[in-house]
């Protein structure tokens, strides 16, 4: 089944696609509306464990919305409502009575603009840990050190732990946000264009970090940069006008996509 929208032929709903290995998060037939305007049309997407899945597509195609749906961040927008199912193992994320705190602890998020809390670096990382577990002072110190080291920022901040997190540079702030996210030991990390506000050097550092994080976490990343998706991700989903048009291994999407539309997008001829 396919239909024509805006002069392009797109499949009316995505087929469920298999990925290698275990599936961490499963999205099935997700429709989403902002008020009367539909933003997602029957999206289905599997997220494989310990892999990087990237979502690409032109602006306004719904990739950030889809990402924010994965930890129910869209609930903060009052006019947003949805239909469909997202499940993470046994837990159904889209359930009405779902425990949002538990879900968001398990699915951390890094945002487009670095947004550390206006607290000290120490408290930035320690806050979430203190919230979910009740560590002793030494345990907390150890967790914070470990998280900062994993986020590759320890060397830069180890002697200024009580400076404000907001006093760091943009790239450092973003890595601090990543440290804050991984400190609570999530299963999945969602990244919403984490490098769009950063310079090339900071971007390279973050990309390297993503590849490193893959060993312990499952990463889903929304990006505008095709080259970034190609560099860091194992699976790529291409979205267009609220539909997941094509999904597959990154190599295949970039070298030999099934649809003409995808090919034109990844080669930079539109979007």
């Amino acid at each position, binding site marked *: 089944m396919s239909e024509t929208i805006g002069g392009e032929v797109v499949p009316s709903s995505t087929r469920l696609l298999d990925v290698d290995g275990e599936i961490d998060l499963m999205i099935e037939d997700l429709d989403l509306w902002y008020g009367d305007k539909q933003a997602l049309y029957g999206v289905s997407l599997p997220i494989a464990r310990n892999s990087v899945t990237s979502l690409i597509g032109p602006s306004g195609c719904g990739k950030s919305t889809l990402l924010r749906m994965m930890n129910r961040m869209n609930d903060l927008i009052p006019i947003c409502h949805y239909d469909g199912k997202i499940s993470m193992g046994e837990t159904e994320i889209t359930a009405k009575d779902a425990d949002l705190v538990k879900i968001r*602890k398990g699915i951390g998020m890094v945002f487009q*603009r670095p947004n550390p809390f206006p607290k*000290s670096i120490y408290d930035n990382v320690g806050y979430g840990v203190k919230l979910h577990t009740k560590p002793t002072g030494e345990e907390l110190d150890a967790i914070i050190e470990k998280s900062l080291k994993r986020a590759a920022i320890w060397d830069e901040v180890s002697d200024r732990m*009580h400076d404000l997190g907001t006093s760091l540079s943009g790239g450092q702030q973003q890595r601090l946000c990543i440290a804050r996210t991984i400190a609570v030991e999530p299963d999945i990390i969602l990244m919403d264009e984490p490098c769009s506000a950063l310079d090339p050097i900071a971007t390279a550092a973050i990309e390297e970090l993503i590849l490193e994080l893959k060993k312990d976490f499952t990463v889903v990343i929304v990006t505008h940069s095709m080259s970034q998706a190609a560099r860091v991700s194992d699976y790529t989903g291409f979205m267009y006008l609220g539909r997941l048009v094509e999904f597959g291994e990154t190599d295949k999407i970039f070298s030999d996509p099934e649809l003409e539309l995808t090919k034109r997008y990844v080669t930079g001829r539109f979007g």
Partner: protein
Amino acid sequence: MKDIDKLQKRNRKLRGLTELAGSMGLAITGLIGLLFLGILIWQIAEPTFIEGERGEITAASESIPESNYRFKWDFPTVDENGKLYSDPVVVRFQWNDENGFHSHDVQINVIDTRQVKTDIYIDSNGVDQTEIEVGRKTNFNAYSSIRVPVSVEQISGPVPNADKTGYPSVNSFVITGDVHILLDDENEQVFQPMELIAWITLLILVIVLTWPIVATLKIIQKLKGRRTLIKLASYVLAGITFVVSDGMFVAAALGGICWIVSGVILYRIAEGIERLESLGRELSEPSRLKHSISDRDGVLMWSRMLLFTSALFIPLLIDIPFLTERYQDIFIPYASGIRAAFYGTIWVMLIAMFVSIPISVGAAIYLDEYAKPNRTTKLIQALVTNLAGVPSIVFGMFGLAIFVKQDGFGWGLGPSVLAAGLTMGVMAMPIIVLAGQEALRSVPRTLRESAYGIGCTKWEVTKDHVLPSAMPGMMTGTILAMSRIMGEAAPLVVIGATAMILFDPEPLAALNGGNVNFTVIPIQIYFWTAEPDHAWHSMAAAASIALICLLIAMNSIAIVLRQHFRKRLKS
């Protein structure tokens, strides 16, 4: 293209003009404000007397030392031939000192020759003259070497009684008239050295914290591992300062706080040094220490504020008897103070704060964060917005009906401090709610998202992230509302604040059956200006200055806090 250029140019000009007009307007407003303040100060230094056309005694006090009076015999009455026929003027000097009440009359004979005069000297034995001769239009002085204010009253003589001509009669013209009314630096207070040492310690520590140097840090380094001891020592020292002090209460309290804050600073520095050492860093780079002291900016801000405030009371020995020691004296204006009114104001403010802040902040959070945006919420919002614009006297009527009166819905608190505080609290609520909502709305969405993103509940997001970020705005709104309350007289007139009381107001009198009477500074000013005696008018001016100083202090605290938090959020 050309037209667009022209337009842009004109636009730029217009914008420039608007900018200029705006800044000029602001500058003029500021200047007018300064002018008014100047007039106030001038009024207290040189009271303006209503000048009679005929004979009249005027008193002025241009830069005369304390308790000295200058008299001028102006326009004595003359007959058709230009000869004087005025009766002698009798002036009565009165004062109260440790030897009891003194009353001395001096007869002033006015003669025709100008520049002839005799000065009067007042000491503890009395007045050195009983009869003097003074030429017409000649200034003469009364010098006083005693410490207490002396009142001067004209007993007899050609004061224009004014019944026929319409000039008011002046029967008393007392003036000591300088800042001595407000401030007292007579050094009567005995300061314990403990307070001064506390202040100096804090000063040194603030300097160390502001510019850390290796040499000073080496000394503090020796204290590491004894952090509990530092804390304990500061508490003990504070206690000692407070107990052994027999000077001013304010100075003792501030000295105690100085000790505690010094302890906190030392504790934090020692902690920072330990942290640096555990990382294997050397002390040779003291600038690194800046970054390892927890909340250094906050500590610095609070201790600087404390240092500044206590500087007035500890090293400068400023005492303000006008505010905190003297009650109103019914007969002698310059022996009066606003103690009762000052404490009344403080109590009303405290009760108003206690009532309004929790409710209003809660309401603001509920309306902005929790309430669903439905019709009821919108209605409440509109009502709150309108309430902020309701004239204060209406709140006075509300307070009268609900808090003061017994019948109907009334709580029957009577015209008491409690009723006044509750009324003022109700008046402040809409202002604080609106300021709080504004502050909450200005918290960036990204901050909420990042907090939700690591798994906070709604309450945790509000309590740990949104509220601290909205704090500067809320605090500013609150302090501004409190300043407004402080200067408000209208609702309290309705409630029934008294013109004059000779005891400290009891905050809970309405509940335990004490004397409910109270007054506040604005009311005191209002009643003093209504007195016929001019001397009370300069007292009203003095009270105004005291009120303005209190307001400036409160607003400065608001500004400092706001800047501090803003820097923290923006940096």
